[in-house]
């Protein structure tokens, strides 16, 4: 036996075995979800066979998930746009300007993260009611943007700080104004930050349940998380529909992560750690 053999065994035990166990731990719930979504009601098979799409048909066409999905997409995309836009402006200001009360402002931003959404429910409800925004998707977009913006601004300011200020100064010496210098020089370098902040905004908005439940009444305006909850009744539960709805709810989040994971890891390490 060569010396490489024990090394390989050790590597398997130290690295691959824990990873494999962790993978099983992570994948089993997904498999459970797919299994229940794809096998017929009442089946006890451990394989999704015979394959059926009846549960997807039930949730998509029968339970209105087609509408819920469209609503969730609009709300999440607009939240992403607003959060990213305002986070860019706020983050830039925090990173590049010194102003009186800056530390207190940063502290206040951080403190907003300690307030649970449920606590703000009734004040928000009253505000939206005053502006006739109850039962409007704008209530969700505004509430989500407001709640996500503080953390997004703090994250973004970290990204901006990592862009050498000399680059902007050079651009300004070449005749650019601050806005032009920001758009031409800083913004392209902020791509990982934009992706990270945008992803968090999208996923946070996509998954939000409480605000959608409280601010929207019309079934035509509801979102996927609220629709998902309707598969569990007081005394009944439709596991097939629940699992199929879970797949519908998970797909956009999985896709977002698949496309942006490279930027996300890079962005998180840059913005959060060094920031």
């Amino acid at each position, binding site marked *: 036996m060569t010396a490489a053999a024990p090394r390989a065994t050790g590597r398997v035990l130290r690295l691959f075995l824990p990873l494999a166990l962790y993978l099983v731990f992570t994948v089993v719930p997904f498999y459970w979800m797919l299994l229940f979504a794809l096998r017929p009601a009442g089946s006890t098979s451990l394989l999704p066979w015979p394959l059926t799409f009846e549960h997807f048909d039930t949730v998509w066409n029968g339970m209105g998930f087609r509408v819920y999905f469209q609503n969730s997409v609009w709300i999440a995309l607009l939240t992403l746009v607003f959060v990213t836009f305002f986070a860019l402006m706020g983050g830039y200001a925090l990173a590049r300007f010194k102003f009186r009360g800056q530390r207190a402002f940063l502290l206040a931003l951080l403190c907003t993260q300690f307030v649970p959404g449920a606590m703000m429910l009734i004040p928000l409800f*009253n505000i939206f009611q005053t502006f006739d925004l109850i*039962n409007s998707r*704008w209530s969700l977009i505004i509430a989500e943007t407001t709640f996500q913006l503080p953390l997004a601004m703090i994250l973004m300011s970290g990204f901006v700080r990592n862009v050498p200020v000399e680059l902007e100064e050079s651009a300004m010496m070449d005749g650019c104004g601050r806005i032009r210098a920001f758009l031409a020089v800083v913004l392209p370098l902020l791509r990982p930050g934009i992706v990270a902040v945008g992803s968090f905004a999208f996923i946070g908005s996509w998954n939000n349940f409480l605000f959608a439940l*409280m601010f929207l009444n019309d079934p035509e305006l509801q979102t996927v998380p609220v629709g998902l909850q*309707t598969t569990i*009744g007081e*005394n009944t539960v439709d596991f097939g529909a629940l699992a199929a709805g879970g797949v519908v709810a998970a797909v956009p989040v999985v896709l977002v992560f698949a496309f942006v994971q490279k930027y996300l890891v890079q962005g998180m390490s840059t913005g959060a750690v060094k920031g």
Partner: protein
Amino acid sequence: MSRTLRTTAAALAALGLLTACGSSGSSSDSGGKTTITFWDNNAGPARTPLYQKLIADFEKANPTITVKYVGVTSAEVAEKYNTAIASNSTPDVGGVTTALLASLTAQKALDPLDERYAKSALNGKIAANFLEISKSASGGKGLFQLPSSGNQDVIWYRADKFKEAGLSAPKTWDELFAAAAKLTDKGKNQYGFTIRGGAGSGFQVLSEAYAYSGLTTMFDAAGKSTVDDPKNVALIEKIAAQYKATTPEADVSNAYPQMLAQFQANQVMMVHHNLGSTRDVKTALGDKVAGFLLPAGPDGTSVLANPVDGFSLFKNSKHKDAAWKFVEFLDSHEANSYWNQNVGQIPANTEAYADEWYTTSGITKQAGDSLNSPTTKLVQPPVYLPQYSKITKTDAEPNFQKVLLGKTSAADFAKSVADAFTKAQADYQAKNK
């Protein structure tokens, strides 16, 4: 593409988004039509289409009234109602179970229905016991909910497996435990019974205890809770002894979805739930499943009243007459019968008891007969106590888990629940002298 063109395209796209996210508008009266808002308190794929059909029928019969349906899931309905009350935006009419009634009446959100019911064509047709449960749930202050459906605890069992084992439906708790032992085969991952150790365990174990003890009230004449009566404790001990002997180990944290999933997956042979799951178990198992009412103990049996479903008018409604008309329609013979046939529950309208589906419904009729029988000892849970939910859920559920895990005794568990009930009842009576 020129910059102007790009800017125009972006503006149009933004306009499109704005349009897509606009408000759907709120309900209002127009053209002689009244729009009422109805909140379904247990929306879902099984119930929502039934309401949609009934609303369409109602609107056809009442062309001047439009009903706006809002489906709310049962898990969130209390929060939704509370937010609506706090922000003065309650619906005109809403589905309300007796479990929620005390909280809503305490907040003075509901309109009393005694007078409307007395003048209604429904007067005398709604089951007396249901009305009694409803009035008791609001602390005896009157009628704030018109009952529509009754529920009753049942034990679903695998009739095919019982037949194979030469067993019949148990009539006593001892027969049930013996059947559970006989049907348990741990090697095959098959268990005779399943215990609710997770959410909802508090009410469930109390209903089992009173079915065994036959006690008729939750409080004695001195206002002391009867939960820790030795007969109740005896049953709780027997139930706890089943844990891991004839039940899956996971029961300690299982609520009804997991219990029913195990039952439908052939892992457990008996499951204690209620008529609300009739449709689910029948769809999954067909003729292989049957039900029986909770068995009796040595001194007979009692029934711990389940929440009764019904409809309430909200005080802030500007269209109470139209809303009441809708409630009357939902509780009419035809509509109430249609609804309960499809959800597998007991109709509140007694005219439905002669309908063929009901007379041939087996366990639903059996449960209905039991609930409506004057000889049935109906125990009213004190849902009117503000602390009821805390006592039976927040406090009792983790403590019952400790009983199952052998960390506390059944007697101590029962005493803690009883003491809490006794104190809450004393406080309630002091405030409502």
